[in-house]
């Protein structure tokens, strides 16, 4: 490549007025970073008048994002206004009028969240830890040493699916159904996961049907500490309309699956790209609890959350109008050098590593963050016991999405001790 082609990098040459960071291909090729760097520097709260998703604001700096997060009176998550992603939830072609508490404003949000959250609260997780650890060990012990394998399929998907099955007390042999539904829920036809919105709709209705069966069964059993039983037996959730039931299920499936899956893969890649950090970790496994939040920041498995302005407002000196779509780019805020020291470096013993945006903040902050951290901690503890290195041996393939930041393939070889 000549310097000429380098300087013509579109991220630095496209006029700001035409800059559109919503193209999923920029995320798949992992070239989005330089666009965000430029926006943080030149136009941190940026208006894009025209895109495949209509006009939208990009909020790219950590503290501006924080301001939007905590102001849920002004910046709504309501699904009827479009919900929580750049792609409107209630848009015609995707229409399956799903309702989930992440896409509701208080007070309805509060009641439903309160009903479900005990399942992923620390005291319940203490009970789950030994099960997750045993299952993680089982997955790792079944892997061949020295042979090329796909880490995404063999470990990341397996482990998160197993955990999710445990949280739902889902029929064990059928647990890969959860993986499929998670993929389908966030897929568009261009990803190839489904061939049409029609197919997506059908499969999600199958999902609802299946869970309805589990729901009816749990309703006739005494309460247990799994997510379905909790929803069945809580007054806030037990009479939920059908599509609200389906919506909340999908929220829990996607929330508990895609995100952690991609942080497990992302951690392996980051350590391989930073061999000194990998050595530091091998020399002191006690660093794992500090490393986990750094992996979650580094990966930022959800690139953004979106809000809709309920009234005129101001962010970073820009006038936002009532009805405007406001996108908080976590992936950008997590690289903001005004808040995070040396943000483009992966540092496993970073002081203050918990101060990142990946879980969001305010009333919509990720409910499952402790489960995510628990899974990541356990998997790394168990990896270190067994292998001297999980070595990346080929190019990773990334997800075609402007919402899920993840991997579809990560070829690795395992080295024994």
């Amino acid at each position, binding site marked *: 490549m000549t310097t000429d082609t380098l300087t013509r990098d579109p991220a630095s040459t496209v006029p700001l007025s035409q800059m559109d960071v919503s193209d999923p291909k920029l995320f798949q090729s992992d070239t989005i970073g330089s666009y965000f760097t430029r926006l943080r520097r030149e136009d941190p709260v940026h208006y894009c008048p025209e895109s495949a998703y209509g006009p939208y604001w990009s909020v790219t700096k950590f503290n501006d994002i924080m301001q939007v*997060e905590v102001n849920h009176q002004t910046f709504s998550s309501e699904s009827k206004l479009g919900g929580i992603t750049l792609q409107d939830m209630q848009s015609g072609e995707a229409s399956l009028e799903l309702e989930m508490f992440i896409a509701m404003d*208080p007070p309805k949000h*509060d009641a439903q969240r309160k009903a479900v959250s005990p399942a992923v*609260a*620390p005291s319940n997780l203490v009970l789950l830890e030994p099960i997750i650890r045993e299952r993680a060990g089982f997955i790792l012990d079944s892997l061949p040493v020295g042979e090329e394998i796909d880490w995404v399929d063999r470990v990341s998907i397996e482990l998160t699916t197993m955990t999710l099955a445990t949280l739902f007390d889902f029929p064990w042999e059928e647990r890969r159904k959860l993986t499929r539904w998670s993929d389908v829920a966030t897929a568009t036809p261009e990803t190839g996961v489904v061939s049409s919105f029609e197919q997506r709709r059908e499969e999600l209705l199958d999902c609802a049907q299946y869970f309805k069966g589990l729901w009816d069964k749990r309703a006739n059993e005494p309460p247990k500490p799994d997510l379905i039983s909790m929803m069945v037996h809580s007054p806030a959730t037990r009479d939920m309309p059908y599509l609200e039931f389906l919506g909340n299920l999908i929220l829990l499936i996607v929330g508990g699956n895609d995100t952690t899956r991609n942080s497990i893969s992302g951690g392996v890649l980051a350590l391989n790209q930073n061999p000194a950090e990998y050595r530091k970790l091998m020399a002191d496994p006690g660093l794992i609890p500090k490393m986990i939040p750094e992996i979650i920041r580094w990966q930022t498995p959800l690139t953004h959350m979106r809000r809709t302005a309920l009234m005129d407002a101001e962010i970073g000196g820009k006038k936002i109008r009532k009805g405007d779509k406001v996108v908080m780019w976590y992936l950008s805020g997590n690289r903001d050098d005004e808040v995070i020291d040396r943000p483009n470096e992966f540092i496993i013993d970073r002081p203050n590593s*918990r101060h990142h945006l990946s879980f969001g903040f*305010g*009333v919509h*902050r990720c409910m499952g963050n402790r489960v995510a951290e628990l899974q990541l901690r356990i998997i790394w503890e168990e990896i270190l016991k067994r292998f001297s290195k999980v070595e990346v041996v080929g190019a990773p393939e990334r997800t075609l999405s402007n919402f899920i930041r993840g991997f579809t393939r990560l070829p690795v070889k395992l080295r024994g001790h």
Partner: protein
Amino acid sequence: MPTVIFIEPDGAEYPIAVKSGTTARDAAVNNGVPGIDGDCGGECACATCHVHVDAAWMSRAGMAEPGGMEANLLQFAEGSTENSRLACQITMTDDLDGLMLRIPDGQH
């Protein structure tokens, strides 16, 4: 310098003397008190600094303002009670010297 005393679920006590004006969250985070992560940096946005104010101190420390952000977040925190506060919203003053804050079971 007022002292704030954090009490772990197992009874272990962490007395920390801080300058007046310091929040209880900063006192805990800067001194490595287990169970107070303070992820949002003290912005009242994450509830990882949840504490139970000792009953004898409630009148002086005060309750979270009903309907405010602090109360909003506390309703989702595990083990939240009438005595629950977010430590980042408690500013230490001489008046609060000796304040006892209990760390909820399972916060870590």
